[in-house]
């Protein structure tokens, strides 16, 4: 593993991705310590007027919005929503996807047919429409967002896991485990899953970017995080009308935050894929890739 880790350290794009994700995650965790104002606090100048649409300056790094709220605080706290939904939804999609994918791959037959058919239905369904429909009918809220996005994403995980399980289950050590009397569940959990976690990890990391984009899109459309809780997509939507009148900062900073986080996860995922792909070795393009 020292070798793999040192190769990862040399992979500049992956390190850049790791850096972006880490910085944003730390900012989200320590938000109260690095921001000067509450994200929902409507600031008022000492003479009594609102601190409206102040351009970025040394006091308000990202400027303020029309309600007199500090955009830096809102962007930093907005990272919480994105990361929370990203991780929770990924966890849900992994839970469903790994379970169903492993069952389909290991047992095959009718089980496989049903699960694969279900996955195809989810693939064929327009992503955002599905979540919109769910969110529109049920009262909006964070748990609903996790569940909706997780449910939308399980099919990709399941398909990946199914394929991996299919290839691993033909290995001799699985046959040997069966010959020694291991039950189906034990063989899947103890013998097969540890052997396929690498590609699943890569897919989960790459999927985080997509999920964060999805959350931002939903919030942009007003179906996601409900105000006044800060969320990047919602900020972009709110600031949009002021873009052309000169108050560019309201939309621009949340937009850059989304870009940075999604880019970070994608670079990290690419790096992990290169790292965990056995076909890669040091002689083969570690520097030029990504």
């Amino acid at each position, binding site marked *: 593993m020292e070798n793999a880790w040192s190769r990862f350290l040399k992979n500049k794009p992956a390190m850049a991705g790791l850096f972006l994700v880490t910085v944003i995650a730390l900012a989200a965790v320590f938000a109260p310590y690095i921001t000067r104002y509450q994200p929902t606090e409507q600031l008022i100048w000492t003479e009594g007027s609102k601190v409206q649409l102040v351009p970025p300056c040394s006091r308000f790094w990202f400027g303020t919005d029309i309600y007199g709220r500090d955009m830096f605080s809102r962007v930093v706290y907005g990272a919480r929503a994105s990361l929370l939904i990203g991780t929770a939804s990924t966890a849900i999609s992994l839970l469903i996807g790994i379970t169903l994918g492993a069952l389909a791959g290991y047992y095959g037959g009718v089980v496989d047919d049903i699960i694969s058919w279900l996955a195809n239905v989810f693939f064929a369904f327009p992503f955002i429409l599905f979540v919109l429909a769910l969110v529109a009918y049920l009262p909006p809220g964070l748990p609903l967002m996790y569940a909706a996005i997780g449910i939308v994403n399980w099919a990709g995980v399941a398909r990946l896991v199914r394929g991996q399980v299919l290839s691993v289950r033909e290995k001799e*050590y699985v046959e040997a*485990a069966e010959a020694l*009397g291991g039950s189906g569940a*034990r063989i899947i959990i103890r013998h097969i899953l540890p052997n396929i976690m690498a590609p699943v990890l890569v897919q989960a990391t790459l999927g985080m970017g997509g999920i964060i984009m999805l959350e931002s899109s939903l919030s942009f459309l007003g179906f996601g995080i409900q105000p006044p809780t800060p969320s990047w997509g919602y900020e972009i939507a709110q600031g949009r009308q002021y873009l052309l009148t000169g108050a560019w900062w309201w939309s621009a900073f949340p937009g850059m935050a989304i870009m940075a986080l999604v880019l970070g996860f994608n670079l990290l995922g690419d790096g992990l894929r290169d790292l965990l792909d056995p076909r890669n070795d040091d002689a083969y393009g570690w520097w030029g890739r990504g």
Partner: protein
Amino acid sequence: MGERILAVRGLKTHYYIGGRVIKAVDGLDFDLERGETLGIVGESGCGKSTAALSVMGLIPLRAGRVVGGQVLFKGKSLLALPGEEMRRIRGSEMSMIFQEPMTSLNPVLTIGRQVSEVFMVHKGMSRREALDEAVKILSQVGIPAPGQMIREYPHRLSGGMRQRAMIAMAIACGPDVLIADEPTSELDVTVQDQVLRLLRELKERIGMAMVLITHDLGVVAETVQNVLVMYAGRAVEYSDVSGLFNEPMHPYTKGLIASVPGLGKAGEKLGGIKGEPPSPLDLPGGCRFHPRCEHAREICRIHEPELVRVGDGRLCACHLYNDW
């Protein structure tokens, strides 16, 4: 006669590939007594391994199934047992080891975890107890420094050590029957000898019966008591080991023995068997060996010979066994 522990009767296992039927095992009979060592020999593709997997109930459902016959283990019909009961027998009362020690161990789990798992599954031990047992059983199969070995991953072990670890897992619960499918084919000759000696020793110590599947007649000669010769999915000859080598009856057995260097007379040209084994997709009618048999007569093309007693507890499936 000792107590019969395993009896296979008319076993038929077919694979289905692209709508075609492959009759890998097609009417196999054999018996195994308590403590006996039986060798099953035959060319690649004659159904040896399929027979073993059928007995263990390990034919993958997607590929094929046992379509006929009976497997009686201690009087129980294994083919009729529900999956859960069969699972409890596998690895405790009846175990199997495989050909490739390189791939039969899970690369991402330590030796200790894999060996201790058998105790956790069959004896319901806690992980700690099971690890202690794993150390004991590893030392019994001649693995040096087992206390350290349980923390190693399989790729750090040599082929011989891996096969020893596999054997440890297979005998952990003191099985009554151990099926060894080509256990030494992938090992160096010197290591082969050590592993065979280990298997013989363990067999004596545990008092288990062993089925040794191999294509190596040398291994058969030095390890087993009785031999079953398989051809195209069926048994063609059954004999004690000295009878088989001194006075083979079936023409196929004769050909097999003649094709091994050093077993015939020195200076003699190596014999062999003409042609190829038949495709299991398209088995010849009559005796399955007749297209390759130099003694074949009209009857061989028409009637399939039964496995009949030919004296001294020997069996042979040939119309002409005393006539050619």
